[in-house]
Each structure stands twice: as structure tokens, then as C-alpha cells.
């Protein structure tokens, strides 16, 4: 065991990530084995399954990447799911009912997210409100505003073959009969950018340090409020981007929903080794965590069970991971 930990490549990636990767692969094999036993004709090992799984992982991934920054500061953002929906509803409504150009609507999706990020960040950092309460409130705001804007109507984004449906190519381009998962490329690109921001820039350095010991950073003469706000803005903006990937997968956006996605996004982030107390964060871990969540969802569906089973399993996994994180932390001290 120690030998594996000391291996140069393992060290570079991080032992936890390697374990997580193994969990992901084992889970896949497990579903591949069990799915046909539970449900006849359930063929889990197929390219179509993987594509479907990935499409879920795209928007979930953007949500999870964003919230990683906030959790790194020691805060939490429960508004990302509804913010994503709010963006999709507002710009979808303007697209379909008001005839706004598509490109403008896509940008608007992102801006709605950014706006909520600014709101959360300013309230938490400058007004000193607890992030838990603030994001709960803005979650309700996002739900309400989205619904009011569309007059409580659902919004249908154009299909791929309809005019203005080209944006669906963002997550997959069909060449002949095969579909190229372009979304994966974009998600990986976003992950790399996030990892660079978190690990190589001043913003990332201070965001992580604030999560570890805010007072020490402030007393070093650092503008902690500014950097903390930035974490929320990054989070909101990525939630806005998630909206685009959500509507590229699902056509219909219903008003007043979205909170279940918060929980899954945060779960993915925490599974990936980002500490809920702040200071420790891993973008790579978040990415794998999200893939595990998506795999669970796909696997449970393939076996013909209700989605609720996925919640139960995800809940149990999160508890296990957080407990393990706490234990290893206590051991170190």
C-alpha cells in the first residue's frame, strides 16, 4: 500500500484520485454485470449508454466544477441548480417567445449565472452573511424569478433539426450514424482551465488559503473579500454555462425546479476530495466524482429502478466519503 502511495505517477495524480478512478471503473463493471441479471435485455455495455451517461455528466460537471471553488473557500452554494434552470428559462423564453437571436440567449444563460454569483459573493463576503443561508435564499429567488419570467410556463428549446438547433452540436456531433461526444472535449477543457485557475493563479492560491485560515490571510494584508467574492462569481458563471449543456441535452425546462442538481453537484465535488471545511480542493477529483454520479444515475435507470434509488446510494456514498475525510484529518492532527 505504502509502495503504491510513493509511486511517482500516483503521487502526481494523488492517491485519492487513483482510488476514486478505481471506484469508477469497478462501479462500471458492477453495473455491466448486474444490469442484465436484474432486468432482461438490459445491455449496459454499449456506446449509446456511455453517450447518455456523458450527457448527464456535462451539465453536472460544470455545476460541480463551479461549486468546487466555493467549497474551497469553506463556503457552500445551494443555489447552482435553480440558477442553472433560471438561466435556461429566461433565455429560453426570450428565444422562443420573443424571438431573440440564439447566440444572445446562450450568452444570457451565462450572464444570469454570473449575476447570481455576484449576488451570493457580495452578500457572503462583504455583508458577512452565512453562505448556507445566502445560497438558500438565492435558490428561492432563482426558482421564483425563472417561473415569474416565463409566467409559470415550461420552455421548449429548439430540436437539433429545427432552425436554431445547432447549439445541440455542443454536446454531440453526428457524423453518419456515430455521434462524436464534443461535450466531453468542452468539459475537459473547462476542467483544465479550472485546474489552472485553482492551482496556478493568485485567485486560486488565495481562495484555497482563505478556506484554510481566513484570518491569517486577511492579516497578511490580502483583500480576502474580493477573492472570496470571485469564487462565488466563478461558481455562478459555470452554473450559467451548465444551463447551455442542460438545454442541449433536455429540450423542456420546467419552472420551479433544479434543487436536486445542487445536491448531486456538491456530492460529486465532495467525493472528489474537496473538503467541506475548505482549503483543500481537487478539480480532477470533482470530474471523477461527477462521472461516478452520472454512472450511478445511468446504471440505476438501466436496471429499471426508480431514480430515488440513486439518491439513496449517492447519499450513502457522500456520508462515507465525508466520514473518511474527517477520519484521515483527525489522524493527521
Amino acid at each position: 500500500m505504502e509502495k503504491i502511495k510513493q509511486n511517482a505517477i500516483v503521487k502526481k495524480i494523488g492517491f485519492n484520485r487513483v482510488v476514486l478512478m478505481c471506484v469508477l471503473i469497478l462501479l462500471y463493471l458492477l453495473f455491466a454485470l448486474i444490469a442484465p441479471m436484474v432486468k432482461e435485455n438490459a445491455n449496459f455495455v454499449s456506446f449509446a449508454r456511455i453517450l447518455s451517461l456523458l450527457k448527464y455528466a456535462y451539465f453536472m460537471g460544470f455545476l460541480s466544477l463551479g461549486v468546487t471553488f466555493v467549497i474551497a473557500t469553506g463556503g457552500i452554494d445551494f443555489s447552482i441548480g435553480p440558477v442553472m434552470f433560471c438561466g435556461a428559462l429566461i433565455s429560453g423564453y426570450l428565444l422562443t417567445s420573443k424571438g431573440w437571436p440564439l447566440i444572445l440567449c446562450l450568452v444570457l444563460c451565462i450572464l444570469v449565472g454570473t449575476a447570481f454569483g455576484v449576488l451570493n459573493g457580495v452578500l457572503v463576503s462583504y455583508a458577512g452573511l452565512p453562505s448556507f443561508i445566502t445560497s438558500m435564499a438565492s435558490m428561492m429567488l432563482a426558482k421564483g424569478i425563472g417561473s415569474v419570467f416565463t409566467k409559470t410556463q415550461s420552455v421548449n428549446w429548439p430540436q437539433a433539426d429545427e432552425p436554431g438547433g445547432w447549439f445541440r452540436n455542443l454536446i454531440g456531433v453526428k457524423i453518419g450514424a456515430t455521434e462524436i461526444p464534443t461535450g466531453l472535449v468542452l468539459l475537459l477543457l473547462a476542467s483544465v482551465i479550472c485546474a489552472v485557475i485553482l492551482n496556478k493563479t493568485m485567485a486560486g492560491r488565495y481562495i484555497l488559503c482563505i478556506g484554510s485560515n481566513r484570518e491569517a490571510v486577511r492579516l497578511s494584508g490580502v483583500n480576502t473579500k474580493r477573492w472570496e467574492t470571485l469564487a462565488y462569481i466563478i461558481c455562478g458563471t459555470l452554473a450559467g454555462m451548465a444551463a447551455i449543456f442542460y438545454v442541449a441535452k433536455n429540450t423542456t425546462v420546467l419552472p420551479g425546479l433544479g434543487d436536486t442538481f445542487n445536491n448531486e453537484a456538491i456530492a460529486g465535488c465532495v467525493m472528489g476530495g474537496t473538503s467541506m471545511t475548505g482549503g483543500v480542493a481537487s478539480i480532477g477529483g470533482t470530474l471523477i466524482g461527477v462521472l461516478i454520479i452520472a454512472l450511478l444515475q445511468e446504471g440505476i435507470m438501466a436496471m429499471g429502478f426508480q431514480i430515488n434509488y440513486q439518491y439513496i446510494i449517492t447519499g450513502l456514498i457522500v456520508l462515507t466519503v465525508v466520514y473518511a475525510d474527517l477520519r484521515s484529518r483527525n489522524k493527521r492532527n
Partner: protein
Amino acid sequence: MGDVILTMKGIDKSFPGVHALDHVDLEVRKGEVHALMGENGAGKSTLMKVLTGIYSKDSGTITYEGREVEFTNPREAQDAGIVIVHQELNMMGHLTVAQNIFIGREIMKGKLIDDKKMNEEAGKLFEQLGIDIDPKETMSRLTVGKQQMCEIAKAISHEAKVIIFDEPSAALTEAEIEELFKIIRDLRDKQLGIVYISHRMDEIKVITDRVTVMRDGGYVGTLITKDSTKDDIINMMVGRVIYEDPKTESAVPEDAPVVLKVEHLNAGRMVRDVSFELRKGEILGFSGLMGAGRTETARALFGADPKESGDVYVNGTKVEIKTPQDAVKCGIGYLSEDRKRYGIVVAKTIAENSTMASLENFMKGAFIDKKKENQAAQEYVDALKTKTPGVDQLVVNLSGGNQQKVVIAKWLVRNCDILIFDEPTRGIDVGAKSEIYQLMNELVAQGKSIIMISSEMTEILRMSDRIVVMCEGRKTGELDIAEATQERIMHAATLRD
């Protein structure tokens, strides 16, 4: 004095890097007040923490009421009748006096808390002790002295047989100390064993029967108070040459320019109209008792806490310092007394901590120049002789002295000219202490200026060129090192309104 109630024999305890207790003995008899003396860091508190089960001992035996005991937590010690009255009061300010006294063992009436009965019981307790406190009063409205009395009442209500007073007089007025002594004498007459930890020599002579002296974690000896002189005790406490002699004259030239001038600084109850000057190349000592407002003054000056009024001049120019950012821009660095909370980010590396205050100088475009950062950190690891395998070591793995060096490095990397050292050697072992002193002397020789807040008299007298003494938020004295004596400082430090 009656029979022996408590014996600690050959108590040994090590922490990583520090041998905190080295075969220490202590014997307490019924009906005696036993002083436990020693300088800060001598191991008195650690010994008491071992006794009450907060720390486990490595070796040695504790015999209490004739049988060997080992408590695993303070609760067990308390149930057996050994209680500590802490230096820092552990009171819940928003609860009433009676609620505080019975915390954890509330008197119940069925499923509900019986406040009326608790008030009655607390009242009886106070009557017994001859203390005039209303059990229904909210704790935070009492003076520190009265709160201390409540602590004592709480201790006694546990049917204590041994009571440990950990520097009980540190924050008390003369009148309150008198009242405290009266209670302690009463307790002694009731055949309780009392351990009294204090730095104040005069009190030791007045209140205690025997004195056990500790030094650097070791046991030095036990004396009978009335048969020994003050000098006997001091010699046992100091008895080593690791401390250099006090400075006899200021090393700062007469015409050294004033780099920092603070005028009429006010911030809350703890900083009242404080004015002082700091000159180039000077170490300005800030002395005073616990709660004198020295840290509060430093924090207000540094912009860490809001100030109400007062002017600050740096190099003759008036500056507005509202946040630590402003202070750092003015070239002021603050090294907190509580390193772990305010000084370092323990979960980050030495390199990351070293550049914390000056990261903008280590950027290559949008990215951190890791190589340059490591170089700078390494430079100061070498210069300050920080003991570490490398700059990528997490600070949590360093000893207290080396963590302090990382904090110093942080401000040196930033090139601050004015450094505020708040208790620079607290929690640092003796060897590392000397190194920190040497380093401070080198810094002022290079033309930096230092404000040093310290509660250790020897440290103040050894390091300072000039000494500001504070008491209850006011500046009550300013002495040149040439005229400073322990007595004069202490006199100013107890100069209350």
C-alpha cells in the same frame, strides 16, 4: 498542614520536539496552599493538565487519597474532587450566574430545569463563601473579579478536595485579590488542598505555605514559604545562564528618526488614548499584565480591528490605516500572539506561507512563478535557519519556533520596515527562543524597527531599548531601558484609575 492528599511522582511528558515535563514531583497536603512557580513555559500548566486528565502522562505516578489514579478526562478528575479554576474564565456570558455554576449537572424538576432551585443553591454557596453576587445576574454583566469568584464557587460546589488556581490574580484589582485571599484562607481552614499558580512573588509570600519551583519542564525543589526569601525562590526559578543579562542602555542613537508615531489611539474599552513613537532601529517593548490592552492596541494600529479615533504617522506622513491591507502597504507587519489562528495557514507549505503577503511580486503574467517563489522561501529558510527538509513542507509539520520563523519570513519577503511582534516566543522552547532574540537583534541592526509585546519580564528587559507599559487600556508608563527595573514596570502595570 494535615495529611498528604495528592502526590505526583516522576511525571514525564513529551510532545513532538519538546520535552515538556521531565520527572516532576509535587506533593499537596490537606489544609495547605501550595504554590507552583516557574517562568512561562516552565511546565506548570502542563503538569496540571496531566493531573486533571487533559494530557496523558508518559511515565510517573499520581497518588490521590492514598491510591494510584489516572484520569482520562477533566470530568473524571472533577468527580474525584480535583478541580481547576482556570486563568481564562470558562463562562457562558449570556447565562445567569446560577446557570453557569450548575452547567452540565442542572438541577431538574421532572424533565424541566429547575432554575429557582439552582438560584437558591447558588445563593447558599455564595453565602458560605461570603461573596456578594446575585445568582440571577447575567454572567457577562459581572466584573472579571466577580466572574472569577463564580468560577471558585463552581469549583467548590463540586465538593472539591483539591483546588488548583491557575494565575487567578492576573486580571484582578487589589481589592478583588484581597477578597480572593480571604476565600482561599477559608478553604484552607476547611482542610482542602490548594495549588496556587502565580508569577507574583508578593502574593506567594502572603498566601502560600509551601512553594514548588519548576524550570524548563523539570522539578527544581520545594521550599517552606515562611523559611525562605524572595531571592531563594527567584534563584531557583531562573538558575540558569541561558538568558543574557538585561540590556543596560538603548542601542538606538539619539538622533534616530521616528518611523512610526501613534497619537491618541482609541479602540473600544481596551485601547484608551494611547500615544507613542517608534524610532528607526529600535525595539520598543510593550509590557503589562494580562488584559492590559497591548494586543488590542497593536491590532487597532494594524487595522485588524476597527479604531474609533487616533492619528498614525509613518515616516512623518499621516496615513489612514483601515484594514491590514493599508497597514501592509505602509510597511507594517504584524506577528500575532496566536500563530496558528492568525499567523500561518498550517495546511499550506512553507513557500506558500512565505509569499502570502507579497504574492503579486511572484507572478509571471497571470500565473504564480513557482520557481521564484521557492527560491525566495529557500533564501529565508537559510537565513532564519528554519529547520525543515524543504520549502514544500507543510507548515503544520514544523515546531512552534520554526512556525514563528515562517511568519517572520512572510514579513521579510514583503520587506516590511516596521514589525510588531506580539509575544514572539510564546509556546517556543528555550533553544529556539534565543534564536528568535538573535534574529530580532539582527533585524534592528539592519535598520528595521520592532514593537515587541511581551508578558515575560525577562524578555522585556533583555530585548527592549525603550518600554511602554499599559494597564487597562491606557499607557501608564514609558521607560528608557537604562532606568527600567522589574519593580518600576510592575508599578506602572498596576497603575489603575
